[in-house]
């Protein structure tokens, strides 16, 4: 058993403990807590009626619909990609695996603005592809397809990077046993792999969805900001704010804040569940 003297030397004096805790809590509250509080206080600053009016309005509703549509397309795309990538990477050994993982992580280290810019360059009027698109009357940039592409780009790694380490950790024994017992590839995936990765998968989908719905920079560059047509919720917040319509801006922002809070709560719940499962 450690003596009192050793105990004293492996923890700080009470005053130091209190000071550190006070500073830490104050910092967290000031830097992270206050902005969240500010969103809701500002949103309700002119009363409940003004709050509802800010949200229940033609352009706000079309922005919500567009955001839901964009997330409904980009999250499943990245989900399929995440599963395919982690199956190849975690269940097989091949040359260039680490390089492939680095490439998958790439969108995380690219500025959102650049993520939008690359699609403007590819599909914009000045490129060869852009001219062809105009001739054939296909709109990608400053339209919904561009917004989807930019969102897919910024949320690209989320699901894959959750699944790869999880599936690597689980190894291949269970799948090999299933195959040797005569299961088909798909049966093995649905009945052996999927149940093993379902929480990690859900976790990745959750984070991917939060980012897809909240992305601002990349979407802002490709959107064209056409009210009622190419405005997502975050872009609508910006427009309202720049029009000095603060109550409505914060009211719409409060929807996104709620989404963030729900995401965090679900994330906690999944973390609790997986740590309990691991014992």
């Amino acid at each position, binding site marked *: 058993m450690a003596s009192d003297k050793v105990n004293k030397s492996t923890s700080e004096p009470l005053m130091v403990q209190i000071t550190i805790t006070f500073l830490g809590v104050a910092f967290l509250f000031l*830097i992270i807590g206050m902005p969240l509080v500010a969103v809701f206080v500002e949103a309700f600053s002119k009363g409940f009626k003004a709050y509802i009016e800010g949200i229940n309005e033609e352009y706000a509703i079309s922005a919500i619909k567009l955001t839901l549509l964009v997330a409904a397309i980009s999250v499943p795309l990245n989900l399929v990609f995440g599963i395919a990538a982690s199956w190849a990477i975690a269940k097989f050994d091949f040359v260039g695996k680490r390089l492939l993982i680095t490439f998958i992580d790439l969108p995380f280290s690219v500025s959102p603005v650049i993520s939008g810019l690359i699609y403007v360059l590819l599909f914009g009027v000045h490129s060869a592809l852009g001219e062809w698109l105009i001739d054939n009357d296909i709109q990608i940039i400053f339209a919904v397809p561009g917004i989807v592409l930019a969102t897919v*780009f910024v949320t690209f790694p989320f699901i894959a990077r959750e699944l790869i380490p999880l599936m690597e950790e689980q190894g291949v024994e269970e799948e090999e046993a299933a195959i040797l017992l005569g299961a088909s590839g798909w049966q093995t995936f649905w009945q052996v792999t999927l149940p093993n990765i379902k929480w990690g998968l859900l976790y990745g989908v959750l984070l991917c969805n939060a980012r897809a719905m*909240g992305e601002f920079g990349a979407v802002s560059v490709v959107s064209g900001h056409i009210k009622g047509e190419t405005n997502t919720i975050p872009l609508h917040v910006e427009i309202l704010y720049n029009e000095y319509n603060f109550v409505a801006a914060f009211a719409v922002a409060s929807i996104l804040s709620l989404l963030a809070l729900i995401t965090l709560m679900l994330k906690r719940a999944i973390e609790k569940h997986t740590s309990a499962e691991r014992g």
Partner: protein
Amino acid sequence: MYKNFRFVKPSVLPGFKLALGFTLAYLLIIVLIPLSGLFFKTATLTWPQFWETITSDRVMHAYYISFGTSFLAAVINVIFGLLVTWMLVRYDFPLKKFFDAMVDLPFALPTAVAGIALTALYAPNGWIGKYFEPLGIKIAFTPLGILIALVFIGLPFVVRTVQPVLEDMEKELEEAAASLGANRWQTFTRIILPHILPALMTGFAMSFARALGEYGSVIFIAGNMPGVSEIVPLLIVVKLEQYDYAGATAIAVVMLIVSFIMLFAINMLQKWSQTRISRG
């Protein structure tokens, strides 16, 4: 020797070709081809044109602001991030779980929302800004405002990188140091700090890299005055709005190269961190 070369190790599991084929095709279409377009577009500029674009006065000021505020924000995040991590790992206090969960908020809160909320707090008539206004300190619409936004978005990177390392650290090391006569401060600086240093540096690099590219949370609070509070990502957008595609692309290439260097540095730091831990 080459006869034994195989691209993939044999396995009884099916679906390798399908999974890898799909992965590569999707990666090419979504990420690699669009990103390479950036370099092709820059190639339409001559070298002197490129150089002039990326070193013009306005761009140089933007680098200065972006790198300066990002660096300072990362330093603040390392100091307070370590403090917060220490408190979360070592101490027990009421609502600890709640504060722990709070750290993740900047990851989940859309940047535009953070941007307008921070502006509401730090504007001259804002909740916090109004107490600084009489002192002659302006926070929003100055580089100080940018700094606050970057501290907000960068904090979880430091806390979430250091936290697992500090949690896994064996108490025996500290006990040994203490029983050999080290006081608490010596134990911290000579035993604990070297152990968590790689993780701290990784957190620093991640926070710095994220801050350099950040756009949404900054543009509302920055005021965006050219030469005073204009960050590089905003300058790319400004050039785009002026239909100066080549100019926007040239600056983007510079930032992308910086990001790649940061990515490389972070990977190296993480490797260092892992060898440290497995040895310890």
